[in-house]
């Protein structure tokens, strides 16, 4: 049984079709990233998986359950990192984490989770006094304190500085190493590349590509650009077999200063994929 199984998911808002037939299959323990431009249907899809939104049609199973009817036991196995940044009351970080932890059957220790997300120094601070990035870290703490089997992360590192992002990636990797399934949406392609075992690109409510970061959109076989500084200036050649080309050139005695071989980046591939959908 997979952790997430989606067949033919559809959702319309009035006359606008947000999700038009998506299939997804995420095995246990995988880190799966969902990429796509704003309005593509990523958030709608994730909210349906989390049980926060009703779908129009399609078959959805998260940990074997239909999220639309998921009860207490199901909720205890799911972790959702929300983007709720503020808190109406005067609670401190520790109080907030302890409270949410108390709603779960086998939570982690609050102090431990607070340290893990890097809020150790702010444990006694009021939530309202936290910066935006710190609040996002609190959101992560609240999402994982219940020790869930699967964690949903919707654009989790928005507002993080580079150091905090690296710390966060380590956290995600540690979660994944212990067997937690992770579904992540992100705009940051380096993040998708760093974390995801597999990823999919959504545009205009449809899945346009699925694969590993290395093979997405035929990226691996897309050929490379070989560039060097020749006597007449910068030379470059697009080829499917860069090694053969370089061998041919050096065999012919051509000098290759400033030699670079570049494959299309994930960003290039991604932009090309969503570009086709426009």
């Amino acid at each position, binding site marked *: 049984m997979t952790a997430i199984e989606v067949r033919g998911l559809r959702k319309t808002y009035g006359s606008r079709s947000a999700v038009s037939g998506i299939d997804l299959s995420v095995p246990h323990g995988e880190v799966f990233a969902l990429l796509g431009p704003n309005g593509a249907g990523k958030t709608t899809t994730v909210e349906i998986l989390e049980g*926060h939104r009703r779908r129009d049609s399609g078959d959805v199973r998260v940990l074997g359950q239909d999220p639309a009817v998921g*009860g207490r036991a199901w909720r*205890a196995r799911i972790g959702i990192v929300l983007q709720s940044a503020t808190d109406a009351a005067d609670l401190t970080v520790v109080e907030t984490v302890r409270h949410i932890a108390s709603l779960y059957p*086998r939570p982690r220790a609050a102090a431990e989770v607070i340290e893990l997300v890097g809020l150790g120094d702010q444990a006694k601070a009021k939530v309202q006094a936290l910066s935006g990035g710190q609040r996002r870290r609190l959101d992560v703490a609240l999402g994982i304190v219940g020790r*869930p089997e699967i964690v949903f992360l919707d654009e989790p590192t928005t507002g993080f500085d580079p150091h905090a992002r690296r710390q966060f990636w380590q956290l995600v990797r540690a979660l994944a190493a212990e067997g937690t399934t992770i579904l992540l949406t992100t705009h940051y392609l380096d993040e998708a590349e760093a974390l995801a075992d597999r990823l999919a690109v959504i545009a205009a409510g449809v899945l346009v590509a699925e694969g590993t970061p290395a093979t997405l959109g035929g990226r691996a076989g897309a050929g490379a650009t070989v560039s060097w500084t020749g006597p007449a200036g910068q030379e470059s050649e697009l080829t499917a077999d860069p090694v053969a080309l370089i061998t041919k050139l050096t065999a012919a005695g051509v000098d290759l200063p400033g030699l670079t071989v570049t494959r299309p980046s994930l960003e290039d591939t991604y932009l090309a994929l969503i570009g086709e959908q426009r």
Partner: protein
Amino acid sequence: MTTESGTFTPAPGRAPMRAILRQQVRMELLLTARRGEAVVLAMGVPLLVLLGAGLTEATNVPGDDRLGFVVPGVLALTVMSTAFTGQAITTGYERSYGVLKRLGASPLTRPGLLFSKTAAIGCLVALQVLALALVGVVVGWRPELSQILPAVGVTALATAAYCGLALLLASLLRPETTTAAATLIYVLMLAAGGIMFAAPDLGPAGSFLLPLAAHADALRHALTEGSSVPVSSWLSLTLWAAVALTGAARKFRWE
């Protein structure tokens, strides 16, 4: 099956619902205690009404036992002020701040939240009613205690009804609108009568339809006269509670 549990080893289990509810009720009470000043201020109006209408000739009250008429009405008003108006406003803001959404993502469940909020508000209502009743006694109100249990019973029903209505309102409207609507309803109820002065002749129908009037009437019968609470009051409040809680359970939105 679970061996050495690492920091992140997924470890699902079952928590008794009791424990979850206890935790949530505790948190609701804690949050209320942190807003202590607001709670005390909320008692200001009922207190003024009690002293103003109860001790002076300012309003037209049926019968000659002024306090006997006014104090139960004030108690009923306090219950409404806390369990409806205060609850609606607080919940509306919790919803807009994302607090409810976070709870919705946890194993608390919708019925769990409704129960916790109602239970916590019940505790608060009990304290406030006791405090105001004490003030009433100090200024001369002499309640009959033979019907105290039915009095508590109707108050519990009224609290449940107001809570349900509050959560319903907070789910249907935006926070600012919720605040305005809840306050307006409060003022209208206060003005419609039956608390400070004799109600315009709404007749038994009016007393039946408005939970505040039904509650106030029931308390007058029980505490001032020592007679049993009329069936119509029981019926009215039970229906209100049933409808309100069902509506809230169906329509309640976490975000």
